[in-house]
């Protein structure tokens, strides 16, 4: 279950970040922030590799004792970071991928909205609903 979902813009500022408010949200924000370094590292490492759906998915960025952080980057360098609870018996990789795919699709829908200026914070209700479903469902 995604404990925290964040959408980071190309310039590494958050477009959307939300966590299950069970804990100190700041901690999740910090984790996401630190994970950005890992994301950048992976991006640069990919280099020659083909950009593909799978390349978009970065996989496990780094694990902590409680959480695992997964990353996903789009072709426009918008990053999705997801923090999941380790105690949740291993979410399969495919599930994480599908969650990122859903995120990506919802993000695309938000982009399609002409009233959305790229670079604004994402305030779309549909996006919120989708993220909520992700944060609850995998529980």
């Amino acid at each position, binding site marked *: 279950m995604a404990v925290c979902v964040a959408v980071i813009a190309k310039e590494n500022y958050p477009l959307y970040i939300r966590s299950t408010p069970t804990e100190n949200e700041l901690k999740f924000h910090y984790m996401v922030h630190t994970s950005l370094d890992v994301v950048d590292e992976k991006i*640069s490492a990919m280099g020659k*590799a083909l950009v593909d759906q799978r*390349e978009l998915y970065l996989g496990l960025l780094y694990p902590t004792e409680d959480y695992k952080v997964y990353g996903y980057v789009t072709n426009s360098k918008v990053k999705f970071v997801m923090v999941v609870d380790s105690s949740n018996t291993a979410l399969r990789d495919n599930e994480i991928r599908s969650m990122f795919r*859903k995120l990506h699709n919802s993000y695309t829908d938000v982009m399609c*909205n002409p*009233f959305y200026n790229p670079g604004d914070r994402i305030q779309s209700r549909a996006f919120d609903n989708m993220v909520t479903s992700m944060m609850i469902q995998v529980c």
Partner: protein
Amino acid sequence: MEGLTLSDAEQKYYSDLFSYCDIESTKKVVVNGRVLELFRAAQLPNDVVLQIMELCGATRLGYFGRSQFYIALKLVAVAQSGFPLRVESINTVKDLPLPRFVASKNEQESRHAASYSSDSENQGSYSGVIPPPPGRGQVKKGSVTHDTVQPRTSADAQEPASPVVSPQQSPPTSPHTWRKHSRHPSGGNSERPLAGSGPFWSPFGEAQSGSAGGDAVWSGHSPPPPQENWVSFADTPPTSTLLTMHPASVQDQTTVRTVASATTAIEIRRQSSSYDDPWKITDEQRQYYVNQFKTIQPDLNGFIPGSAAKEFFTKSKLPILELSHIWELSDFDKDGALTLDEFCAAFHLVVARKNGYDLPEKLPESLMPKLIDLEDSADVGDQPGEVGYSGSPAEAPPSKSPSMPSLNQTWPELNQSSEQWETFSERSSSSQTLTQFDSNIAPADPDTAIVHPVPIRMTPSKIHMQEMELKRTGSDHTNPTSPLLVKPSDLSEENKINSSVKFASGNTVGQQQTGVVAHPPAVPPRPQPSQAPGPTVHRPVDADGLMTHTSTSPQQIPEQPNFADFSQFEVFAASNVNEEQDDEAEKHPEVLPVEKASDPASSLRVAKTDSKTEEKTAATAPANVSKGTTPLAPPPKPVRRRLKSEDELRPEVDEHTQKTGVLAAVLASQPSIPRSVGKDKKAIQASIRRNKETNTVLARLNSELQQQLKDVLEERISLEVQLEQLRPFSHL
């Protein structure tokens, strides 16, 4: 809410009032405006009304549920009796008189009815409910004068409006209400919202209530405009005129809105549009929307690009966030452009929002765009709205894969369809590279398009098949199983006469065989040298060789019932076999429909191979990796499968043939299931021969297809490498 005990008289009175206020007949939520009228009719000071509303929780909830309403009424009674307003006073104060509301219902009703009728003559169905604020300002008494003033003032006020407001007379009030509500976000001007809500309720000038202050609470909760107020994206000048009128009107207004006016409003609403569905677009409104659409996009079948729509709706002066939400709701296909239906829905939502109606979370059904021109919308999907739709987007090239139209058929389920679209597009993109045959797929069946890419385990293991056979031999439905057994027996052994007996027991094998053999028309052009001398087999084989559906169409026609029968088979299989077999058996029919609908055998086999090899891939991944030489992650997987499948082709020929046999047999057996008539041995043996031939043919076909698949994959890999090299920017 704290418990509320009501006496019988109170109960009755309250429920009457509730139903009076329950314009929408929801039985649960009362229209705020109506309630507000009522409270004002109680002749209580504004702050008291405000307090009552807070206490009963309506302000918290935003609406008046039945309990809130009852509590509010009780509080009104409390207030009118002079007791201090307390939550506890609801139950503690005993023997409260019933809350009094000024002006008897009947009297007001008759008065307003008269005014309404006269008004309706002037303006038609829309007219009455929404008196324009200027009109309101001018007419304080005498609804008749108000009526006459209404059209005049509305016309006057509208003329300075922007040209967007095309219909002048007929939608008399909505522009005004629009402008009025444009103040909502801007100021929280307490008078304004009241003015806004006013016209809804008392059509004829009685709209204003003196207690504007109390109504400030309701700024967001005006009753839904049952009939739409026209929206005029008017510019500020008209608004300012409205503004000036408002204070005057509001201050002058002392009329108590009464039950009567509400009922007349109900009548009006009922006339104008079905109040039961506040989101329904009436014809006049629709015409207005269409006219507006034309001003932006002359072609009614075309699209309004997102930017143009953005400008247009921005004129409504709704906050961007709300406009964004409206867009999300109304852009049904998420293509960044609005079709006529989408535009009408969006317009309607804007109008509703302007009138204070909260935006729904989901698009109401009456606003859902008709599912026409799905191909256009599908093709447009995922493209930026600005991509030239001004022309004739109706002819937008079906840029998406041919499978898109099939997806469109699932459009009615919005969420599902979007998910399917997403998933399918992903799958199709991958599956297209995997097999060429996908392009030939004309997904006549929506299920096909969706089901097809799913890799499923086609081949029941031998054990399963035998189990299935065992289970089925016990029943009359031996046909499905026997072919299964026949097939493997053909290639590997020929000792399963018993199974073949079972197979033939219920089949007119010949006919079905032809049908079955013809069924996979995707058989490659290479004519299959059939082992059996049976001419009948040759003929179908040749038909296969044609590789066209048309040649097999006559045979496919009888297959259609087979196809249709697959559900039976599915059910049957599901019921008969264990869970594992269920999956397999069910997948058979799943894949089979795919096969039937399009290039069956090829894609089917691919899918089967996929599924089959997928299982094995998981088991022997390391071995496969060595085979899969490509360094890339995605290609290796399918390549692995292909290579592996080829390697295992020989030993797995059985299973291949089993699969094909399953397919064929299932197909063949379907119509034969009902027939369980014994045949003589000769026919059985002939059928066995034919089946064997079919098996070999299909097996060969399978291997060929796999080879092709491998080649295509390699091509794809090389292309991807090239693309990566050519890519201007990389991850660095």
